[in-house]
């Protein structure tokens, strides 16, 4: 989960990383009660980068200008995202701009400290200036000093920059972060340091063990208006809005392989992929594997743009027979429901099951006229054929 700049800076302030006086602006008239002296920088609080170039950052010198600028920023989407809030912040004159970050290096399997004396927007164009230190063993401040020395810092700057890295590391561990970044870290002519922008990504898997972060995540989720099934059903991925095939499978790798096969057979990606997970993973909510499959199908079936569904499941716990039975029950139930509204027919369903007792499983699906195959390539060819044939939904009964 990505934090907004003002949220990141609240954490910075709490742990003692220097930030400018600032105020959160929920609506333009909040600027009438501004406690920071002008000039003030108004910054759009969106999660995407490049907001300065897009016009999401404005310097203002009086209340009238500030309100007008705030109205403009509130109405400016940046890469499709409208800001919920703005940050009003004191203006700062930096002499130089540094870059500092901590991430986890998946190959070293250790936290990685990153630093450059060429920060700001230049950091990506100067990769050779970016210094790295792997935190091999338990963290100790010398790792931060090692980074500062590699960055070429001396004297007071060495001490002050490594002190900030140390605090960043504290947050990184305390809050289970994937990323903490200060860019730019402003350096004034007197050598004072100031975190002018901050980026923090909390590891999604760790959120549930931090009540404060969980509350933030729940607030975000209630705000997003995207259409997706309940989280306990599985992981929902919208792939291609123009696609008309949905794939429901058990396992991310398997879904990716299935997606590739569909893309190659039809020259188009599927519309959505739903990963219901494998039997090994049991959600806290306690939905059984078969429940997840059925609820996933119910959800996908509501989408009128889907012409064909491929279910691709390899399993042993539960058995293919149990899964086939659940799907057959679903199909029967749906067709009963739809007798009253005949214009709404099912998207065509292809079921690919692999495991033991396939004959029994297949017989169950045959009984409700659902096409099934153990062979993946065959199942792909079939679902692509269904997707290309005219939509069965328009058929007049």
């Amino acid at each position, binding site marked *: 989960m990505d934090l907004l700049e003002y949220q990141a800076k609240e954490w910075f302030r709490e742990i003692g990383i220097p930030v400018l006086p600032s105020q959160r602006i929920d609506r333009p008239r909040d600027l009438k009660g501004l406690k920071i002296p002008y000039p003030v920088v108004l910054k759009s609080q969106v999660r995407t980068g490049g907001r300065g170039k897009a016009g999401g950052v404005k310097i203002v010198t009086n209340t009238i200008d500030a309100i007008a600028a705030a109205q403009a920023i509130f109405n400016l989407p940046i890469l499709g995202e409208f800001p919920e809030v703005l940050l009003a912040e004191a203006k700062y004159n930096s002499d130089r701009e540094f870059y500092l*970050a901590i*991430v*986890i*290096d*998946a*190959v070293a*399997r*250790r*936290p990685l400290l*990153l630093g450059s004396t060429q920060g700001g927007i230049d*950091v*990506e164009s100067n*990769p050779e200036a*970016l210094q790295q230190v792997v935190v091999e*063993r*338990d963290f100790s401040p010398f790792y931060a000093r090692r980074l500062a020395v590699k960055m070429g810092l001396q004297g007071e700057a060495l001490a002050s920059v490594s002190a900030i890295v140390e605090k960043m590391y504290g947050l990184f*561990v305390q809050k*289970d972060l*994937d*990323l903490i*970044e200060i860019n730019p870290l402003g350096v004034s002519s007197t050598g004072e340091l100031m975190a002018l922008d901050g980026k923090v990504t909390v*590891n999604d*898997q*760790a959120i549930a*063990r931090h009540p404060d972060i969980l509350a933030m995540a729940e607030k975000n989720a209630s705000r997003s208006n995207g259409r997706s099934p309940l989280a306990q059903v*599985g*992981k929902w*991925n919208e*792939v291609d809005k123009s696609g008309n095939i949905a794939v429901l*499978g058990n*396992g*991310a*790798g*398997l*879904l*990716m*392989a299935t*997606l*590739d096969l569909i*893309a*190659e057979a039809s020259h188009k*990606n599927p519309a959505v*992929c739903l*990963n219901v*997970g*494998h*039997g*090994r*993973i*049991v959600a806290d909510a306690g939905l059984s594997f078969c429940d997840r499959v059925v609820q996933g199908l119910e959800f996908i079936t509501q989408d009128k743009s889907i012409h064909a569904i491929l279910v691709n*499941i*390899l*399993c*042993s*716990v539960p058995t293919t027979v149990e899964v086939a039975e659940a799907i057959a029950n679903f199909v029967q139930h749906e067709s009963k429901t739809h007798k009253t509204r005949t214009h709404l027919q099912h998207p065509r369903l292809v079921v690919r099951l*692999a*495991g*033991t007792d396939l004959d029994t499983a297949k017989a169950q699906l045959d009984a409700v006229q659902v096409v099934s195959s153990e062979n*993946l*390539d065959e199942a792909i060819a079939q679902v692509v054929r269904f997707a290309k044939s005219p939509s069965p939904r328009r058929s007049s009964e």
Partner: protein
Amino acid sequence: MKLKPDSKVLIQGMAASLSSPYITRMQAYGTQIVAAVSPGEGGSSNNLPVFDLVEQAVAEVGAIDTTIIFVPPYQALDAAQEAIASGIKQIIITSAGVPPLDMVRLLRKAEANETIILGPNSPGIIIPGKLLLGTHASEFYTPGAIGLVSRSTTLTYEIALELTKAGLGQSIGVSIGSDAIIGSSFLQWLQILDEDETTEAIVLVGEPGGNSEEAAARYIAEAIDKPVIAYIAGCHAPAGKHWGHTGTLAAVVGRGDNVGTAKSKLEAFKAAKVPIAERPSQIPELVKKALKRK
């Protein structure tokens, strides 16, 4: 890695009956499960003695070769540390969603104690016909000479099924796990498979995210003598989506946009002259070709 059929195996975490169907399957496969540990559930279950602590189990049944951890993800670090404290040298973590910083702590400790960690989010290891350590669905496998190493679970079954149907049995099937930070790497398993006497060819199955496939490709070119076939899933998957696998955790600040993409992995295998299958069903034919050339 000690992978003998008579290896002594411990199960950690029997609560919520999650592990019991897998215990039954492992027992049926002949795996020597000697005890289980489930705090507060001491007694017996699945014809197994159940202990509250790993050290109690070790005191009762003697040294243990491998433990398989089935606890909820936030308890995995603790369970693995308990195993290390009791001198267990091979740990398989099936739990999915272990926080990366827990894994960092665990791996620091494991390396210092020369302990191998497989996973997390791994179905474990199968030696078809001989040994099942974990949750692999054994019906997709058949004994043979092809080593199979991947990062996922069901996609591994898919490949095993393709090989089995083509008459190519497997020597070992292993998934290194789909979480972002994992223990043993492709490199370690390539080395194990290269040294394994039964294995004649290796199939490596990768997917977008991280750069372990790239590292594997370089290692194959330098150090692996046996033929290797690669397959990468997710070539058409939109970038940045992690599909429930968090192995894509970027950690790539300042390293360019191509890091971790399927394209970058394909290029790495091409550069290492490793034949690449375009789809799972093409793997057997490439394996047969490679074996003939040997």
